[in-house]
């Protein structure tokens, strides 16, 4: 058979294998929009709590974002087959969501959510953990860079004034949610564009 098969053809077959395996495993890039959504939601919650002085700012915005994310996730699940990798990454983010919700709801209701530095440090550290774990599973350097930004933010917010702490948080949200999310959306669009139909 290989008598009639050129090296170019063999390389092309190798390309098909690589592309298709990557297609089957592609996960986080499809979630670029969700990262942007959560970035916007963080900004809304911060603005509402700062200017509205409402205790419901965080619970209300988080709950709406969770509902939207669950709806999007269920729609995606219908189109995408399950993979061990996908389940591992999904579990990390679900556990993160539950941890943050339970912790901050309890802290808010008990009236102990008074230290802004601690609030930003805990959120940043948890987001660093989830991004770091996802990045290590996917071997994705861009997401690992996001994890590093969150970890740096978690440490940096412990020092300086309230205003400086808030600036650190806003910058981290912008880089790791908005910029990273848009990067994910663009990366997915490029992969879709590059792909050619495969014929027998």
């Amino acid at each position, binding site marked *: 058979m290989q008598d009639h098969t050129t090296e170019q053809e063999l390389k092309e077959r190798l390309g098909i294998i690589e592309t298709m395996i990557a297609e*089957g495993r592609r996960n986080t890039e499809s979630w670029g929009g969700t990262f942007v959504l959560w970035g916007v939601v963080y900004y809304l919650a911060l603005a509402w709590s700062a200017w509205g002085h409402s205790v419901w700012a965080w619970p209300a915005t988080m709950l709406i974002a969770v509902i939207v994310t669950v709806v999007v996730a269920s729609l995606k699940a219908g189109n995408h087959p*399950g993979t061990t990798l996908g389940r591992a990454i999904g579990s990390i983010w679900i556990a993160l969501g539950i941890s943050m919700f339970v912790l901050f709801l309890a802290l808010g209701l008990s009236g102990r959510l008074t230290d802004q530095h601690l609030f930003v440090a805990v959120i940043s550290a948890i987001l660093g953990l989830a991004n770091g774990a996802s990045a290590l599973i996917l071997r994705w350097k861009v997401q690992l860079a996001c994890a590093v930004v969150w970890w740096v933010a978690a440490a940096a917010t412990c020092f300086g004034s309230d205003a400086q702490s808030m600036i650190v948080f806003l910058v981290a949200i912008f880089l790791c949610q908005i910029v990273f999310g848009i990067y994910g959306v663009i990366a997915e669009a490029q992969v879709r564009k590059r792909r050619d139909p495969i014929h027998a």
Partner: protein
Amino acid sequence: MPDLPELNPVVHGRLRLALLSLLSGVEEAEFTWLRAKTEATDGNLGAQLLKLEEAGYVAVKKKFVLRKPQTLYRITETGRQALTEYVQALKQLLGPAVDV
């Protein structure tokens, strides 16, 4: 000079190779997902999946979800083995510089 390996003709077809590669990364996949990923036509995709099924490389499961028929495909152990052997043969033919 060592003998060059034979490439499995069932795996070698472009669409069949794409399908096996796709299925190797997921637990099971719907016909519609495979069609979207390969951008193949229904007829062509069905024919190639049938060949893979006849070779014992994929297993088919049909079920109804909300009264709609759904056809799910998964790679079998034989299929996974055939794909692995195909990749090894490709590597041997293309030389040691290739890394998959």
